[in-house]
Structure formats: structure tokens, C-alpha cells
């Protein structure tokens, strides 16, 4: 016992070092397990408050650009309103439609922290549990994708940006619906990688890639980007291409969080499938 105490006192600094390193590495590699822990909650509140103050100041510098984007969005929405359509049939009447049911709701949120220069980038938004935000919700800007919510506290949430090593988006070619995967491998925040393009797909520069709707996060048809360059692999089964993202990740200021009103139904369906599999 005495020897043990002596040993501990003599080597306490190595032990402290190991303990602190192990704590850090556990936090790092089990990030997902702590998403709703007290630590995340407290730190989100603390960091959120500081970052909120700073973004309150810096947002004035981007007002001109934000106004332009809003005006463009407005124009787009105006052109889809019923007033914009020519009515040929004057006898038409309103009818409660059972064919269309609201599937997505949008919550506007402000970006209060964002990065594009790290290998793994996260975005903090000023909306949280209180506004109905939950994990795994998709985040978009207009008709372009931004990322996915990974951690929520009362008033803030963190979004895993597309610019992250864990981010993997299921997309497809708009021209022929061929499925591909989109990833980001660091470097420029404008350019990503398109993986697993089937050999028979003829690729052209400028081809548009949109979301496939296969994942639970994004609906179909959101803009991901356009093909920048491609390589025809001789000995592999798939071709590769690089993609120029439609979203300018370095200038995000207002985004929308997608609330999937049918998510529970989709998840229940998936779970029932899993129980049968067992």
C-alpha cells in the first residue's frame, strides 16, 4: 500500500497525462454517444451565447448580399403562386385535395458560427429544441443543400456541414436519374467528389447533380452541384468525377431547417421491416 502511494506520487504526472488523453480521445471517438449529454448541452449554450454576439455584429457586413439572395428567392416564389398562372378554365373551384399532403415544414435560422477551412466543418444555428429542431434534420439554403443537424440544445443546434469527412450525400444525375454518392475530401470548399458513377453513364462537364431522395434527410430534387471534371477509370467498375457545389459554404447567413412531418411514419415503417428481418 505504501509502495503504491509512493509509486502514485512519483509518477502522478504520467498518470494525469494518460487520464486526460484518454478522456479527450473517448470524447473524440464517441462523439455521437454524447450528443444529448449534459456536456453538449452546457457547451452549446456557452459557445452559442458568445458566437451569437459576434454574429450579431458581423451580419451587418453581409446585408447587401443577403438582400440579393432574398430578393431572388422571393421572385422564384412569386412565380409559383396561383396568381402567376394563366387561368383558362373559369369554372374551376377550390377543392380540399387528398392527393397532396404537407410533408415538409421549413424553419428559418441564422448561422452564428461557420467554418470551411477545417477537415471537419460544423455550422451553429440560432434555433434549438424550443423551436422544434431535432437531430438528423436536413438543412438547406433555398433549393441547395447545406448539411444535417447533429446536436441540439434548447436554443442552438450544430449542423454537420457537407464539408465533413462523415458527410455522405446520396445524389443522382438530373438527366437520367443515375444514383451516385457525394463526399468531400478536404481542400477547396467549392469542390467535392462524386463516387461510384456506373460505367455506362456518359458524363459531361456541367451535368447537374441533385439529391436522390433515398436518404431520410433530404427530399428529392435539391441542388447539390455541377460536374467540374471527370476521370474514366480503366480497371475499376466505377468512374469518378469532381463536383462544384451549388452552395457557397463560406457565405452562409440564413438557412432553413427541414422538418419532415412524416418522419415518424417512415421510421416506424423501417423498424417494422427490421423486426421481420430478425
Amino acid at each position, binding site marked *: 500500500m505504501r509502495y503504491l502511494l509512493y509509486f502514485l506520487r512519483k509518477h*502522478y*504526472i504520467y498518470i*494525469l*497525462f494518460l487520464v*486526460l*488523453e484518454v*478522456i*479527450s*480521445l*473517448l*470524447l*473524440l*471517438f464517441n*462523439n455521437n454517444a*454524447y450528443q444529448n449529454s449534459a*456536456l*453538449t448541452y452546457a*457547451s*452549446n449554450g*456557452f*459557445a452559442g451565447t*458568445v*458566437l451569437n454576439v*459576434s454574429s450579431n455584429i458581423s451580419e451587418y457586413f453581409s446585408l447587401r448580399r443577403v438582400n440579393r439572395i432574398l430578393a431572388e428567392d422571393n421572385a422564384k416564389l412569386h412565380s409559383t403562386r396561383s396568381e402567376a398562372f394563366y387561368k383558362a378554365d373559369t369554372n374551376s373551384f377550390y377543392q380540399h385535395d387528398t392527393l397532396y399532403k404537407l410533408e415538409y415544414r421549413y424553419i428559418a435560422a441564422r448561422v452564428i*458560427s*461557420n*467554418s*470551411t*477551412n*477545417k*477537415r*471537419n466543418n*460544423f455550422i*451553429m444555428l440560432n434555433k434549438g429544441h424550443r423551436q422544434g429542431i431535432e437531430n438528423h434534420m436536413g438543412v438547406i439554403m433555398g433549393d441547395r443543400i447545406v448539411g444535417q443537424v*447533429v*446536436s441540439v440544445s434548447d436554443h442552438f443546434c*450544430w449542423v454537420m456541414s457537407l464539408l465533413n*469527412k462523415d458527410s455522405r450525400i446520396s445524389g443522382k444525375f438530373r438527366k437520367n436519374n443515375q444514383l451516385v454518392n457525394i463526399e468531400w*475530401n*478536404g*481542400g*477547396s*470548399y467549392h469542390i467535392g467528389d462524386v463516387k461510384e458513377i456506373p460505367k455506362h453513364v456518359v458524363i459531361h462537364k456541367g451535368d447537374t447533380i441533385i439529391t436522390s431522395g433515398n436518404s431520410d434527410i433530404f427530399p428529392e430534387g435539391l441542388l447539390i452541384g455541377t460536374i467540374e471534371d471527370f476521370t474514366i477509370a480503366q480497371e475499376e467498375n466505377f468512374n469518378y468525377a469532381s463536383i462544384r457545389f451549388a452552395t457557397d459554404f*463560406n457565405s452562409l447567413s440564413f438557412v432553413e431547417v427541414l422538418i419532415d412531418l412524416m418522419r415518424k411514419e417512415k421510421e416506424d415503417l423501417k423498424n417494422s421491416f427490421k423486426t421481420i428481418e430478425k
Partner: protein
Amino acid sequence: MTIIYLRNIARFVFLVLFQVLILNNIQFSGFINPYFYIYFILLLPFETPPWLLLLSSFVLGITLDAFTHTFGLNAAACVLMAFARPFVINAISTGTEFMIGHSPSLRNQGLKWFAYYSIILVLVHHFALFFLEIFRFTEFFQTLLRALLSSLFTLLLVFIAEYLSIPREKSSSSR
């Protein structure tokens, strides 16, 4: 004694805010991210007890992590750097450089000593950080390049800060 604590706490707060609000928002081609906040660990006084050195570095790292949602990443790199600090000081010192109540600095220890000291520790921190961040070997050379370029910029900032602090230190004898 209290003044040393207060000065280091103030430096902690200032460097965290500078890192989070300014440096983290700077965009150079996605390859250069200076992590100037570790200047705090470089400047802790020589006689800081080892446990305090490790603990304050851990707290520094975890604070940074809270702002970028990367729990444990900066903390792990900072603790490693703090652990290496006494060994680096022992290895490069001849025994005449230390003065009680002083922090390592360019003025007191000389250019050669301070250059060795900061270059080794910044490289330790940055390599740990960038390789833990990606944690795969497929992007090995890319990550190596990021670590080297970022270390270069961090060191540049460290030396600018050191040169800026020389005139001020002549009037006040200890820091």
C-alpha cells in the same frame, strides 16, 4: 504571485476569443488553419507545476472544442503538447536560461532557444491535431501538408507576438 495568475487568465480569454472569432473564420485555400491559441501553453511560467500545466491545457483545448463542435480534438493535442513541454525545455536548455517568475520568451531566452522551443511544440500540437482530425491514412500527404503549412503560420503569429511584446517588457521587468 496573484498578478501572474491574473495575467495568464486574461491571456487565456483573449487568445480563445481571438482564435474563435477571428482566426477560425479566415479562409486560405482550405490548407492553412493557424492555431495561435496554443501561445498560451508556450507562455506559461517555467515554474508552473506539471499538474497545472496539463490541466490548464486540457481546459484550453476543451474550450476551443466547444466552439467548433469537435469534442476532445483540441484537448488531446493540447494535453500532448503540455506533456511534451518540460521534456523539450530540459532537452534544449543549458541551465542558465531560467529566471524565477518568468515565462519563456524571445527576449529572455534568446532567438535560438525560443525558436527551438516554439517550433518543436507547435509541430507536436499541429501534427497531433491534424492527424486525429482525419484519422485515416488515405489522405496522409494531404494532412502532412496541412499540418506543415498551418504550423508555419502559427509560428509566424507567435514570432510577431513576441516581437510586439519586446518594447512593453522593457518597462515592466517581469511578466
